[in-house]
Structures are given as structure tokens and as C-alpha cells.
């Protein structure tokens, strides 16, 4: 190994505590995967509550889920899958050092993310109008039992709300990436931030992949 100067010189691609750029990249990627594990357990708590309550109140959950608009949900899922697609193309562009392609794909991913959030806002507003928002004046006509119905919508807003919050954070990261990509900070040698942002974005997409069927598609045939 090359003789290290007394205090090793610091570059973006090689922080001082690492010995090789390879070690730094592997550490950053592995660190991101560990963070994604904490996110799996974070959402896992909500999925646990969902599983227990759906098991206890199957009928009411079915009725409440049928009141959601599955078509919009499916379209929204497609939007998010497309944003994942453009994201991965962006990461590929960064790997090959194509700055312009990276910028285009980042913009596309950001836009698709905004579309998703827009559709989400529309759905929530629709729920607000129908008095399906848990709280004082909650009323759900689909089932006589208001308690468990309010449980479903509490979980609905908790899960989709947390997911939307993660989308907003993701959009923030993408904008930061865009800002630095435009300034040419990412090269084929140093593109770890793009790769890591990609991992985060795909993870948020995976959460929605599970949220969509579990929230929107319960006993859909009952309608």
C-alpha cells in the first residue's frame, strides 16, 4: 500500500478515514443498505398493525378498502414504477460518466415523483370531502361499525402519509443531486451519491409496491 502522508490528503473520492476509494464506495453502499433495513423495520411496525387489525376486522377492512379508488391507485403505482425506471437509467448514466443524460433522467424522476404526490394529494382531498378522515366528524357509510372503519383510515393515512413524507425527502435528495450534477461534480469515478440516492428511491417504490395491494385491493370483488 502506498506510504500514507502524515495526515492523508482529503478528496471527495477518498475521505481521510478510508484507505482506498473502493473501500469508501463499498462502505457507503453497505451503509445505505443498513439504513434501508431500519426503514424496513420502521414501516414494518405499521404493516404489523395493519396485519393484526385486518385479521380482527376482515369485513370492515374490506368495505373500507373498496371505498378507495383502485384505478387511480394502480395508475399511481405505474407512475412510481416509471420514476424508478428513469432513476435507474440516471444511475447508469452516472456510471458511464454521461452528465447530460444523468441530468435529464434526474429531472424526469423528479417530475414523476411530483406527479405521484399530486395524485396522492387529490386522493386525500377526496377522502376529506367524503368525511373519511379519522377524527371528530368521521363517518363511513360503507359499514355500520364506525370504530374499525376509523382504524382502517387511520392506518391508511398513517401508511400513505409516511410514504409521502419519504417521497418528499426523496425529492429533496434528487434536487440536491440535480444541483451538483449540473455543476459537474459527479464523474464516472465519483458517482456514489447518485447510486445511493437511487437505492433510497427504489426502496420507497418497493414500500408502495406493498402498500397498493394491501390498502386498495382488499375484497375488491365484494363491490
Amino acid at each position, binding site marked *: 500500500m502506498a506510504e*500514507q502522508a502524515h495526515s492523508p490528503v482529503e478528496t471527495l473520492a477518498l475521505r481521510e*478515514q478510508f484507505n482506498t476509494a473502493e473501500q469508501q464506495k463499498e*462502505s457507503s453502499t453497505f451503509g445505505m443498505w443498513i439504513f434501508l433495513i431500519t426503514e424496513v*423495520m420502521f414501516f414494518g*411496525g405499521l404493516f*404489523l398493525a395493519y396485519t393484526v387489525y385486518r385479521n380482527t376486522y376482515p369485513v370492515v377492512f374490506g368495505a373500507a378498502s373498496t371505498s378507495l379508488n383502485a384505478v387511480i391507485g394502480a395508475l399511481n403505482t405505474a407512475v412510481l414504477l416509471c420514476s424508478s425506471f428513469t432513476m435507474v437509467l440516471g444511475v447508469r448514466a452516472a456510471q458511464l460518466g454521461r452528465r447530460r443524460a444523468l441530468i435529464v433522467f434526474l429531472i424526469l424522476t423528479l417530475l414523476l415523483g411530483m406527479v405521484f404526490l399530486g395524485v396522492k394529494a387529490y386522493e386525500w382531498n377526496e377522502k376529506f370531502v367524503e368525511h373519511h378522515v379519522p377524527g371528530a366528524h368521521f363517518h363511513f357509510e360503507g359499514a355500520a361499525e364506525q370504530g374499525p372503519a376509523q*382504524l382502517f383510515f*387511520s392506518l391508511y393515512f398513517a401508511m400513505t402519509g409516511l410514504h409521502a413524507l419519504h417521497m418528499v425527502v426523496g425529492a429533496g435528495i434528487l434536487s440536491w443531486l440535480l444541483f451538483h450534477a449540473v455543476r459537474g461534480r459527479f464523474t464516472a469515478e465519483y458517482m456514489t451519491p447518485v447510486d445511493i440516492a437511487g437505492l433510497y428511491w427504489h426502496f420507497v417504490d418497493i414500500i408502495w409496491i406493498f402498500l397498493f395491494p394491501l390498502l386498495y385491493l382488499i375484497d375488491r370483488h365484494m363491490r
Partner: protein
Amino acid sequence: MNTAAIETQENYLNAGYDLKSWLLTKDHKRIAILYLITITIFFFIGGIFASLIRIELMTPQGGLVSSETYNKLFTMHGIAMIFFFLIPSIPATLGNFFLPMMIGARDLAFPRINLLSWYLLVIGGGFAIFAMLAGGVDTGWTFYTPYSTTYSNTWVIATALGIFVSGFSSILTGLNFIVTVHRMRAPGMTWFRMPLFVWANYATAVIQVLGTPVVAVTIVLVFCERVFHIGIFDPALGGDPILFQHMFWFYSHPAVYIMVLPAMGVISEIISVFSRKPIFGYHFVAFSSMAIAVIGFLVWGHHLFVSTQSVYAGLVFSFLSYFVAIPSAVKVFNWTATLYKGSISFATPMLYAFGFIGLFTIGGLTGLFVASLGFDVHVTDTYFVVAHFHYVMVGGTIMAFLGGLHYWWPKMTGRMYPENWAKLSAAIIFVGFNLTFFPQFILGYMGMPRRYHVYPDEFQVLHVLSTAGASILAIGYLFPMVYFMWSLRYGELAPANPWGATGLEWTMQSPPPVHNFDKIPVVTHEVYDYSTVVKEGVEIG
């Protein structure tokens, strides 16, 4: 090296004196010192609450404070001690400082995230202290619903926010440790050449990463239920308060292993150095740390035996709880076996290690009591359980934390602590501790419930004994605070390796240079190989 030369030697402490160099540092050693100051403050805040509780309990009718205040006292004692002292204690101070050095790294994998972790603890602590000053919270550190969501009108939201934020400090520290141990070991530092302190902190990091997020989301749900009245756990809506207990204890039982595993790591180091022998059954002790981390996640239901959890689930949890006890027993037996045919010195860290093994054995064995279904029905939520977890937390973790502090103080500060004062305070702490908590086992079996400040007269004698013990314990804890500060200025200058230890952290000057190693070392020796440090050692045994 005369004292003047040592003074001018460049190290991480004199690398910068202004506030910016401390508050924006990326050096894992300085961050460890910042953590040490923060958790010491919280330790004394929690200690003050504990003293007030013990004074209140001297009389059966509890004259010192009203019921509301007493409920806030034990709640804030629990929160300050658990979330802001015990969980960060050893990993964030001794772990942060020494883990990188022990595996031959210049720093943790993500220094800036390390600094962020400290700020998260301080911000979280700020919220908690604000809640305490504004009026306190009276839900108990367990926040059981529906009391915490519907019936308590105290500062639950502010405290929950504080714990939520400080939880991420724990998650990020765990993340940092896992990546550092996997990716940044020096050449030759194989997994089985790593000191057991690193193994213990690695196992702790796994628990922090996998468990803490679940309590974070549970607190978010309690927050939403109080603020937006959405009823996840509200029985009036058909919610299940027992689901809250499942989600809470899924984290909070592994959290007790977050608190005790690093302590075990410290004890493995101290026992080995001061008997100058490698730990007996190194591989078994290393694997038992990992076993505790994994099985620790399967046993949380033993907190719910009488909570209308089903009988069959109780059977499963009780059975598995005995599995998690075995690795701890293996460790205790291996530590004791290490002393056999050793060359045992009675320096203060070793006294704390002896104290730890004794008290942790009692704490662990009473764990077997409360894991038995029929017995737990009688003693859960009584002082028997209070005594059990104080034996493991105070008798175990705090003893090991103090032992670790004394053991590594020369390396951290370049000064020796006063040996005789330290031995005296260790003895006072040992006596005070036992007098405080052993009577509580008897109180517990007689049926004294937890969180009571008004109790039947027949319990008073044991309570007075316990309060007497608590006052001795409080004095015992003040000693180290005083002489550690004193040693910073007047302490004898510490050589690089005062104890003849084998870790990589002892191969550098005290206090260590900013970048730990000029050249990343290549490790060739096995772990705890004392022939490398004892010059012309006389073979014995």
C-alpha cells in the same frame, strides 16, 4: 519524556481549543468526549429524580411530594436514565472512542453521521428537558396506552418527540459501527483477532439497527393518536392496547441487551488485561454476544404474561426467555474461568469487573425467576422486577461503565486517576448498591407494587433500608465525578500502556494523536497475546 514535552506533543485534545473545533469536530475521539459530558449530565438528572423517589418512599403515607409529582418523578427517572444515559452510555463514549482504534482504523466509516448522532441526542435531550421543566410527564417510561394517549394530560408529546429524535442517534451509531467493523478493519485484523469489546459493540449495533425503528414508529402512532385523534390503539374504536405493548416491547426488550452487551464487552477486556490471560473460550464469548442479540428479539412477550396475552403465546415466550439466559451464563462462567491460573492485579477496573460479575449473576438469575410463568404472575409489576432490572442495569452496566472509564481514562486524557480514592468509591458503590436493591427483592415478593408512593405500613422498614442504601450509593457516585475532574489537572501523567494491555489502542501515545495511526498497522498476533507486551516475562502457571 518530561512533562513539558508531553504537554506540547500534538494530540486530539490540543489540536484545537475553540468551540468550533469541538462542536463541528469529525474526530470520533472528540465526539466520544462530547457524548461523555452529555450522558453524565443526564446521569445526574436521573440520579436527582432517583434520590427524590427514595426519600419519598421512606414514609408509608409519602409526605414529600403529591401523587402527580411522584408519578412524574419515576417517569422522568426512567426516561432520563434509559433513553439518555444507559442506551448511549458505553457504545457512544467508550465504543466511539476505542472501536476504530481497536480494529486499526483512523475513524468510523461516517464521521459526519457520527457528529449528527450526537446532535440528535442533544436535541432529543433538549425536548425531554423542556418537557421536564414545563411540567413533566406522568405516563411511566413505558407510555402504555390508553393512558398515554387518552387519559394523561401531561407533556407526553414533547417527551415522545425527544425520545423519537434520540432514537435515531442510537440507530445511526449502530449503522456506523456495523459498517466500520465490516469494511474498515486493518489488514490482518480477522474477525477472531478482534477484541471482545468490538464483538459486543457489533452485536449491540445489530440490535440498535433492527429494533429502534419499531419503537420510533410506535411513538409516531402515539403522537398521532394524541394530536390528530386517529385511534390506532384506542379501545373505544376497537383498537388493541395490547398491540401497543407488543410493538413497544419488541424494541424495549432487545434495548436491555443494547444496555448490557457493551458492558459485557468492557468486562471481557478488563478481566483479560488484569489477569494477563486471554479470555477463556474466546469464540464462545464472542458468539454468545451474537446469540444474545438474535435470541433477544424472540422473547419480548415475557413482559405481557398477565396483560391478557394468550396463554399459548406466553408459553412460547417463557420457553424462549430461558434460551436467551444461557449465553449470559456462558459468559459469566468464561470470565470466572479466565481468572484460573492468571496473574490477577487488583487495580480499580478489576474491582469493578468483580463487582459486575457478582451483581450481574444475581441480576441474571432473578431474570430466570421472572421468566417462569407462574412466578411472574405474582411478581410482575412489583418491586421484585424493579430490583431485577436495577441489578442488571446499575449493578451491571453502570459498574462496567465505571470500570471501563477507569481502565481507559489514562488513554483518553493522558492522566492517571487516583488509585486509592477510586478503590474506596468502588467499595462504597458496591455496598450502597446492594443495600439499596436487595431489600427490594423481599419487598417485591411480599407484594409491594411498582410506582406506588403510598404503601401499607408493614413495608416501611425495607423501604427505609433501601433509602439508606440509596444515599450511600449517591455519595459513591459523586467520588468519581470529583477525582476524574481533579485528575485532569493534577493526575499523574499516563504512559502509553499503563496496564500492559494488548489492544491496538495501547500502541499509540496517551492521549492519542488526531489520526490514530501514522501508518495503518498490519496485525500479525492473536488477540490477548501478552507475550508481546510483557518484556522478558517470567512464565508461570
